[in-house]
């Protein structure tokens, strides 16, 4: 019988995002031209929420985009083809500080693919990484700049994010044991 534990509820997710937004604002001086890019699927609504909070802090709009990483994955010959999401980056990334936003940081391979994919769109001045959950088990030398919550997990466990934007009844992050 699989066991599920809610590790973040809706209020905790919102608090985590608010804190991440303040950390982004603190790390990057005003006018640093920060843009947010969400990694599908979970990172996309998170990047939009972060953009709204940051816009309130800075009193200016914070551009947000979506970056598909499936064509840059390193495991394409070892798995069924992943779903490909549209990439929408309605601004030039060159010279900007790009904050990549993902829901769960795990092996780090998605982040690596995202950095490669981003390269095709220009040369950002800096790339930073914001994640809601860091569950450990890195396979690459990658570290998040902004973390909502560190969750120690076993390799076979699953962490999933449900958000109302993607059709869920309520926002929550669930840890599932096999």
């Amino acid at each position, binding site marked *: 019988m699989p066991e599920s534990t809610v590790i973040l509820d809706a209020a905790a997710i919102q608090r985590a995002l608010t804190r991440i937004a303040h950390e982004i604002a603190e790390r990057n001086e005003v006018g640093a031209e920060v843009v947010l890019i969400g990694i599908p699927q979970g990172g996309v609504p998170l990047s939009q929420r972060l953009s709204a909070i940051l816009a309130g802090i800075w009193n200016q709009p914070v551009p947000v985009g979506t970056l*598909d990483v499936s*064509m*840059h994955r390193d495991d394409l*010959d070892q798995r069924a083809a992943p*779903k490909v999401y*549209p990439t929408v980056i309605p601004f030039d990334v060159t010279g900007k500080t790009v904050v990549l936003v993902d829901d769960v940081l795990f092996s780090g391979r998605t982040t690596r693919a995202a950095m*490669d994919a981003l390269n095709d769109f220009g040369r950002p001045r800096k790339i930073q990484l914001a994640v809601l959950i860091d569950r450990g088990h890195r396979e690459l030398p990658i570290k998040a700049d902004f973390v909502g919550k560190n969750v120690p997990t076993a390799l076979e466990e699953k962490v999933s994010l449900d958000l109302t934007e993607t059709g869920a009844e309520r926002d929550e992050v669930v840890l599932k044991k096999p």
Partner: protein
Amino acid sequence: MSWNRKHLLDIESLTADEIVTVLDTARAFKAVGERAIKKVPALRGRTVVNLFVEPSTRTRISFELAEQRLSADIINFTAEASSLKKGETLKDTARNLEALNADFIVMRHSASGAPHFLARVLNASVINAGDGAHEHPTQALLDAFTIRERKGKIAGLNVTILGDILYSRVARSDIWALTKLGARVTLCGPSTLVPRTFEQMGCRVVHNMDEAIRDADIINLLRIQHERQRKTMFPSINEYTQLFGLNKARLAKTRPDALIMHPGPINRGVEIDSEIADSARSLILEQVTNGLAVRMAVLFLVNGGKGPQEVTGN
């Protein structure tokens, strides 16, 4: 999202869901073609053999560019300059190519079922780039993609396919794809080239051009394939044009939003009036652009396909 096939051999064996997966994936690859950097590393380190035993220009070039944009290594193999001319069997040729560690074989062949045969004897993924008069699956997928992009849907549309249906692999693949996706397909042309037996594929067969195109949302014109006709199927090209050529007078009697497609190469003044081919209602060049995206999507999907593969036909 549903795709677990190692090969793309025909449309007949695909589900509507699988076809939609290709179209959705192709949409993302079309966007790649609109970027400054049009290349992605999805097939880096993989080798594709383009085995074109029957002459082809546009399909071969489209596949080649798709493979390059996916960062694959490419070997081009044409019948004119190959050992097939020296008496080697297709199986031996293909095994030799596989011994070079080819991961994909894209094949055009004049014999129906040739790619299905290769899929059974090789470990590589096989993509059918047209086999005899049987199927041309990537053409049907790009046609479906183009229709969906321009009309926003496929289900419920009236699609008329005109011309040499009997000898056309494009027509067969189009019929499978469009009917699976819920379009109503009408076939029209000389009765020798459009026999009533096609009604078994779920199509309407009409031998009067005006009736066939009156309610069409899409008019797909096919070329008369002189190279596939062993005997005269109609009295003259001139008569064919008189009866089945799309000209301005006929077009005026169609729905104003009906769009014109053609898989190419077009014979101006035969099946299509030159001005119509170049008009805003013609999707002919969009089909070429979309073909590239669809072929990238197919290569990307079969790369991950490991599932059991039913091989139909022979």
